[in-house]
């Protein structure tokens, strides 16, 4: 008996008091913008499952706009409550920061998202097919292009209303991305906003082969770059022994108080830090479309449905630059002397490369893609400033740029011929004679891209270059101004093409859109002009929002 007991004690022991695991504390109020958008996206999936096909479109549009608008209201409420300045804090057990830059960028992304949903919902650009309104998205994504299944789906009046929940999921990921305060949240947010975008790219109604090709390219290269990001995260975690930004920052700047032997060993290994940081930068620069990681941008922008391109070009850039700023300013300021030369190089080749290659483009969407690359370079110049002005100027630039981009792509959807959108530049000749209003609006956007005074583009560029010059990056500013001048050439060329050339006989016509697209373009023009003529209030707003919490 006693032997049994002693044997028994070999593999059992008296139950010890279990360690109490504290339940995580989630600040639902401070996270409400993201939660509202995610909730709306989930309801959108339920609508897809349970609401009859006829009613889905209206339900989805109303839900998406209501969700984004109420999330924007939540951001405003948080900002008015002082979470952008004095009450800035880190919520959700250190995972998400609620501070000035995060709230400013979230507000921008949500406004851009509302406007993008307007362009998604546009259904009057094409004539009715089989008695049904059609939008920019394929009736059935799984059907082979040109096949019998596709014709049948079109005849039955199917529409891909899934785009609205997909867009909401992407926007929710973009809300988290610039606010992520640890590397895990950063990676998950990146995937949450990338995966829906990959699908959205493949859903064009016209030119489906091109659209699918764009999706494959975006997906493979995006997955490739996020693998780089993840391996960089692993190395940085190995270096610092932690994934939250403030701990890593302490280890990087050598101010960590309690260093255990393992940490002391990895801290001495600078290779982990440098390679890890570089790989994370690769992932980030890919997402913002900076040279030399820009190869996907023109193809994806050209192939994706134009409303999706508008969302990608504006909101993704806002989210990506937000995360890049937080990473460089909160996590790696101790490494500044190492990343600054790299970012200098990236900024210079991005500005020059984008501007020079854009000159040779003959497709309006590709031209705008290369112009977005050049603009990423201008924003990188602000990132390099490493000052509070640098942060706030990039914030302002992002807000200004995203509305111009969205408006420009919305105008691109209007100019159509028999094959859908007429994106070849030669077809835009003489547009100003035929449709002066549309051409004038597009000219405003082009002037803003070029940075002509009294448009938002000028204010943004001025703020970014001023911040860069004040922090001693004068050479960068000179290169920036030169590449702005190069870029101005091809923007002005399109204006000349539209206004000073005879229209072609078989040229494209301008579709009369529904109030949705009209609203989107009007918002774009209004923001462009207001931020150009009276920018002070918004500059102050961005100035107040320029401090990261850590």
């Amino acid at each position, binding site marked *: 008996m006693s032997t049994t007991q002693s044997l028994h004690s070999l593999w059992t022991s008296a139950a010890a008091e279990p360690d109490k695991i504290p339940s995580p504390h989630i600040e639902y109020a401070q996270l409400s913008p993201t939660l509202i958008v995610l909730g709306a996206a989930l309801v959108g999936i339920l609508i897809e499952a349970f609401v009859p096909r006829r009613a889905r479109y209206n339900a989805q549009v109303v839900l998406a706009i209501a969700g984004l608008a109420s999330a924007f209201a939540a951001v405003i409420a948080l900002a008015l409550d002082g979470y952008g300045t004095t009450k800035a804090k880190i919520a959700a057990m250190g995972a998400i920061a609620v501070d000035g830059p995060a709230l400013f960028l979230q507000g921008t992304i949500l406004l851009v998202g509302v406007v993008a949903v307007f362009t998604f919902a546009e259904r009057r650009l094409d004539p009715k097919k089989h008695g049904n309104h059609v939008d920019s998205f394929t009736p059935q*994504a*799984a059907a*082979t*292009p040109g096949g019998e299944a596709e014709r049948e789906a079109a005849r039955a009046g199917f529409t891909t209303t899934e785009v609205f929940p997909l867009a909401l999921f992407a926007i929710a990921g973009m809300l988290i991305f610039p606010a992520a305060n640890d*590397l*895990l949240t950063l*990676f*998950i947010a990146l*995937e949450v906003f990338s*995966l829906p975008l*990959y*699908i959205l790219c*493949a859903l064009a109604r016209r030119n*489906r*082969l*091109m659209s*699918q*090709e*764009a*999706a*494959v*390219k975006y*997906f*493979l290269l995006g*997955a*490739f770059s996020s*693998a*780089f990001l*993840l*391996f960089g*995260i*692993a*190395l940085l*975690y*190995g270096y610092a*022994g*932690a*994934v939250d930004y403030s701990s890593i920052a302490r280890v990087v700047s050598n101010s960590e108080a309690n260093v*255990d032997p*393992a*940490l002391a*060993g*990895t801290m001495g290994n600078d290779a982990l830090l440098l390679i890890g940081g570089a790989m994370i930068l690769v992932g980030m620069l890919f997402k913002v479309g900076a040279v030399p990681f820009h190869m996907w941008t*023109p*193809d994806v922008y*050209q*192939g994706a449905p134009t409303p999706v391109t508008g969302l990608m070009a504006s909101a993704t850039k806002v989210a990506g630059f937000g995360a890049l700023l937080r990473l460089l300013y909160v996590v790696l300021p101790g490494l500044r002397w190492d990343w600054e030369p790299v970012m200098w190089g990236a900024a210079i080749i991005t500005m020059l490369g984008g501007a020079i290659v854009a000159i*040779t483009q003959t497709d309006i969407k*590709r031209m705008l893609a290369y112009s977005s690359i050049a603009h990423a370079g201008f924003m990188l110049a602000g990132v390099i400033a490493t000052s509070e002005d640098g942060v706030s100027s990039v914030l302002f630039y992002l807000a200004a740029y995203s509305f111009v981009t969205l408006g420009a792509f919305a105008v691109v959807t209007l100019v159509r011929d028999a094959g859908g959108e007429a994106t070849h530049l030669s077809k835009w000749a003489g547009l100003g004679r035929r449709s002066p209003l549309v051409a004038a609006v597009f000219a405003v956007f082009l002037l803003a891209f070029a940075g002509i005074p009294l448009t938002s583009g000028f204010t943004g560029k001025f703020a970014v270059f001023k911040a860069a010059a004040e922090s001693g990056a004068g050479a960068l500013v000179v290169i920036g101004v030169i590449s702005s001048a190069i870029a101005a050439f091809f923007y002005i060329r399109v204006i000349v093409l539209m206004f000073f050339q005879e229209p072609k006989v078989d040229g494209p016509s301008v579709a009369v859109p529904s109030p949705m697209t009209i609203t989107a373009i009007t918002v774009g023009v209004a923001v462009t002009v207001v931020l150009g003529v009276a920018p002070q209030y918004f500059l102050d707003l961005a100035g107040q929002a320029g401090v990261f919490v850590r």
Partner: protein
Amino acid sequence: MNPVNYLYLAALLFTIGASGVLIRRNAIIVFMCVELMLNASNLALVAFSRLHGNLDGQIMAFFTMVVAAAEVVVGLAIIVTLFRSRHSASVDDASLMKL
């Protein structure tokens, strides 16, 4: 065994995956190489987790697996649509938009 060896293995696997993405032409193989890169990151995360004696890395490896699974769903769907319309999964054939 010294955990550093696992890191060398992880770096090796990551390099194999990355060169596979750059060299191979079949979209499915390219995609598998991306998955190999993700798994190499997982190995590095778990090795570092063991080295530091905290669980952050292991938790992250779980999240990576979920992300990889989600990526398979989206990625295979996209590649299959491409294959159905072109009867080829070669990334070289998809060149409608080259200048």
